[in-house]
């Protein structure tokens, strides 16, 4: 399966089943994009001779294509004709240690930071039960993960600190290693909290949407005030501390959401990069179409163009020699994940679960509060085996739309929570999300090809 596309004046061919990327000239493009490489050589030659190519050129291009096919780098066969998903083994838990929040962001999964629940802070006893649940359901896994999430997890810092200590202690006893990540709006990220994260090697995901007017439009306090000025101050302090910390074990990046209000989201990248931030993630909002900030089908042409602009902006920064990472474009075609991982994606519902403040288990943090998706509780009792099985088997090859999609190994079938929210079916990805993902991946492949050129130019210099 081939995907042929042009971007920035460059013609690229992505071979889906081998994960190989090729840059082609006009003649090779004519052969591959028109499917002429599948025709008898004589027939394709007749067509191309009519286009003005010489017989020698055509034969050269045909030979190159034949060589790449023989090397398994072009028109490779589907590497999986059958796939058995891994068994139910939990590797990671997302702990909603605080359902409440000191912000009231319009687009929050947690419904403006309350998740519709009244008891909003996770008790330590529940957090410890969650750690025990993870250990007892982790099978042979050695590397386990806990994400502190919310709401705003820093509102329950004593439980975060005690959970880290408890998990490390239990992990040592059972020969397992815990990794931790904390996602925060940064309002409470003071020097003491920052040092705790760094001393404990905890990864930090810091929420900021970009420019002041973008951020403050939807990320406000409960009193309706913008939060940008305070957030930027906290984030810059943390990043400076991280930069100067001797051998920091945890990574950190800033994470923004773009919506229908800022279709010029490349500007957010430029703003954040301009602050000196080197690790950036900008993601489309997940929302029902009736939300005033939702991304809609009519926005697609503008989004597609903005992704292209984002790619060019990113390359411009990278060309200056600066080490900058934009998660959109960090795809690894040479040594990325193995096929079972490519096919199963984030693992929601079978290797990755979320825990509400009350200890209820859900397929992921976005499902919390959707009661029909409650899997069980960390305090004990039976688990919903039917739900676990539903998610365990919801891999790329189980989704009719995905099987024939060129992006299947780069996207891994889309977000199950988004599928359910939009189409009430975890096997049916929303079409707009698919179109946006495909455009974003084209830009990522384009960036990969241009970065190769940058490296080669440096070698020449």
């Amino acid at each position, binding site marked *: 399966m081939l995907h042929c596309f042009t971007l920035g004046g460059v013609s690229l061919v992505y071979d889906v*089943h081998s994960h190989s990327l090729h840059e082609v000239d006009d003649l090779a493009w004519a052969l591959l994009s028109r499917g002429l490489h599948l025709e008898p050589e004589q027939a394709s030659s007749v067509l191309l001779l009519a286009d003005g190519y010489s017989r020698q050129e055509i034969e050269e291009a045909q030979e190159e294509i034949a060589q790449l096919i023989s090397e398994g780098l072009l028109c490779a066969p589907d590497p999986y004709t059958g796939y058995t998903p891994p068994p139910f083994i939990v590797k990671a838990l997302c702990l909603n240690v605080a359902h409440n929040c000191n912000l009231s962001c319009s687009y929050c999964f947690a419904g403006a930071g309350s998740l519709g629940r009244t008891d909003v802070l996770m008790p330590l006893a529940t957090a410890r039960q969650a750690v025990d649940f993870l250990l007892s359901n982790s099978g042979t896994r050695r*590397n386990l993960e806990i994400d502190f999430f919310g709401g705003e997890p820093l509102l329950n810092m004593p439980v975060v600190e005690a959970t880290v200590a408890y998990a490390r202690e239990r992990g040592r006893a059972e020969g397992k290693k815990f990794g931790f990540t904390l996602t925060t709006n940064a309002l409470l990220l003071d020097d003491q909290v920052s040092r705790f994260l760094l001393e404990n090697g905890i990864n930090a995901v810091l929420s900021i949407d970009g420019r002041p007017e973008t951020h403050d439009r939807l990320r406000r306090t409960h009193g309706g005030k913008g939060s940008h000025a305070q957030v930027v101050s906290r984030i810059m302090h943390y990043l400076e501390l991280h930069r100067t910390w001797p051998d920091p074990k945890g990574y950190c990046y800033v994470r923004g959401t773009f919506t229908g209000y800022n279709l010029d989201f490349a500007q957010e990248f430029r703003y954040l990069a301009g602050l000196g931030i080197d690790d950036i993630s900008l993601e489309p909002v997940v929302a029902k179409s009736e939300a005033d900030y939702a991304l809609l089908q009519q926005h697609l042409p503008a989004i597609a163009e903005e992704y292209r602009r984002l790619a060019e902006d990113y390359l411009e920064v990278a060309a200056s020699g600066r080490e900058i990472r934009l998660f959109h474009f960090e795809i690894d*075609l040479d040594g990325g994940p193995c096929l079972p991982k490519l096919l199963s994606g984030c693992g929601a519902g079978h290797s990755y679960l979320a825990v509400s403040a009350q200890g209820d288990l859900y397929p992921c943090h976005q499902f919390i509060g959707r009661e029909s998706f409650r899997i069980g509780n960390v305090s004990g009792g039976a688990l919903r085996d039917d739900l676990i099985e539903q998610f365990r088997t919801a891999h790329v090859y189980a989704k009719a739309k995905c099987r024939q999609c060129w992006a299947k190994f780069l996207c891994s079938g889309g977000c199950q929570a988004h599928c359910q929210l939009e189409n009430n079916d975890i096997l049916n990805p929303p079409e707009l999300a698919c179109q946006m993902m495909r455009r974003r991946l084209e830009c990522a492949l384009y960036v990969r090809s241009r970065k190769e050129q940058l490296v080669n130019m440096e070698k020449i210099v």
Partner: protein
Amino acid sequence: MAKHIKTITRSPLLKREHTGCGECQTTVGNQTCLKT
């Protein structure tokens, strides 16, 4: 020397190890597993 096609990445999936060991951090294309 190829004149018409410049191959940018050549790491065929079929020639990689696919352990499915489940130890990687869990778009997934941005994670590198040393085993692959």
